[in-house]
């Protein structure tokens, strides 16, 4: 035999990622909700108060952009993986891929890259909207830090999404994702600042993954409530938990289908 005996993994990864992006883009239920919804929320909750300054001297507009930014990235991850994976299982895409030379890890990595691309677009649109329409001002380096931290810290939500995707069926996945992710975001102060929420919500917020995730962005503006290291520890813990659950659900499915 002449030539290489297997295709280069990078070539597979690029082709797979390209198709994943096309797939997501062409499903408006996904692309619109993920790219437009955070902006709509900002229009309702953020725009009227964007010009105000918080007690700690941080622009309220920037604070709310950071909050909805955290919501937006988690949204892409939880819905993209949760509903995406559950749907593909429903359509039995996995059977054909399983017999192909594509390694499962490359398949998943392509999904992660796709979600990061969509997250970057969602953040850019949201922050761009805040700057242009809301007149929110921050140094470019601060925005860059907010974006970089939100992308890098999204691992727990990748795990949560994969878990929902492998654990629930294609019909249940959207409901499960909503039931978990919306209350989580709300209770973490992403829609309405925590000091305006009921006491019991404020009591549980510091135990939620999205609370610590948003701290990454808030602290970039100088409005953080805990040291960066503490946020990262919490997120690492939640990543470990959700990824373990995701791997278990994945393995269970593997055993049932391919053992």
């Amino acid at each position, binding site marked *: 035999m002449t030539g290489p005996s*297997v*295709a280069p993994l990078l070539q597979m990864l690029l082709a*797979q990622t390209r*198709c994943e992006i096309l797939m997501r883009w062409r499903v408006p239920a996904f692309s619109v909700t993920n790219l437009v919804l955070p902006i709509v929320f900002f229009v309702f909750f953020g725009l009227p108060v964007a010009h105000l300054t918080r007690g700690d001297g941080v622009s309220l507009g920037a604070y709310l952009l950071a909050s909805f930014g955290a919501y937006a990235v988690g949204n892409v991850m939880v819905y993209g993986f949760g509903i995406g994976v559950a749907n593909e299982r429903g*359509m*039995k895409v996995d*059977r*054909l891929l399983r*017999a192909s*030379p594509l390694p499962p890890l490359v398949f998943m990595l392509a999904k992660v890259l796709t979600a990061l691309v969509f997250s970057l677009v969602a953040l850019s649109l949201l922050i761009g909207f805040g700057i242009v329409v809301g007149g929110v001002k921050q140094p470019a380096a601060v925005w860059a830090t907010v974006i970089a931290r939100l992308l890098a810290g999204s691992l727990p939500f990748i795990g949560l999404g994969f878990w929902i995707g492998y654990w629930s069926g294609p019909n249940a996945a959207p409901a499960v994702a909503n039931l978990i992710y919306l209350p989580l975001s709300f209770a973490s102060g992403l829609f309405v600042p925590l000091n305006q929420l009921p006491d019991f919500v404020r009591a549980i917020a510091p135990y939620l993954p999205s609370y610590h995730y948003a701290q990454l962005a808030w602290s970039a503006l100088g409005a953080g409530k805990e040291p960066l290291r503490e946020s990262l520890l919490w997120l690492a813990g939640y990543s470990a938990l959700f990824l373990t659950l995701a791997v278990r659900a994945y393995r269970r499915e593997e055993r049932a289908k391919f053992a």
Partner: protein
Amino acid sequence: MTPVVELVGARKRFGDVEAVRGVDLTIAEGEMVALLGPNGAGKTTSIGLMLGLRRPTDGQARLFGHDPADRRARSRCGVMLQESGTTGVLTVRELVDLFRAYYPSPLPTERAIALAGLEPKAGARAWTLSGGERQRLYFALAVCGDPEALFLDEPTVGMDVETRRAVLESIRALSAGGKTIVLTTHYLEEADQLARRIIVIDHGVVIADATPRDIKARIPSKRVSFRAGAPLSDAIFQGLAVQSLEVAGLRVRLLSHEPERVLKTLFERGVTVEDLEVTGADLEEAFLSLTARR
């Protein structure tokens, strides 16, 4: 030379059901093999074992001398499965392009699409395809990597006559070009048209492994039924190539692989025949007679 497929004492149990009960077979490079058997015979499970989609409960499976799940082995195989799906929002061309990227030296995209006869639908999204077109898409995905071996599980199911003819023609051409081809079917006719070797599987075991000619001689392919003009004695069927003979009063039903000769002899023996019907035998009942004879 390393065989393409090796199953050694392969068994597969699903809960209480043993779908494959000790299969030994070797498929060499360039062979064109049909796995023939009725529904539920264990054909799909056997293909699954060959491809590493299923792990044998007992025994061994090798693909190009590797573990079947090994990427080096998978990269030499193109696969068409039953009950698999694909992403509907991508177009035929995009999907073929994607699958090409999985293989080291694929065919040009348009060539793969042409082999499946899908040129007019190349720009169509997969969810808009009809059942037959979708089968052709899967065929294009199987061949686009220009693999050495093709595994086709019931490739013509759901295809209309025209599509079926075109796809069988492509398979024949690929085989003539030196590809190893393993396909499953429950049509004896299809196995006969394509394969140079037919492996008959029933109830999870290989009950015959021979040339189409030999298999046809052993499997009664036609059902003959008629009403005799007068009561018949068993002796009248003496020496005829007849399996599973049922005589109920004047009503006669029999299975045979050469109904013309049977009828000719019966006429010569003075049997009068009314309401004659010769139909293709149901493979399942044909197999019953084959297993019963063993």
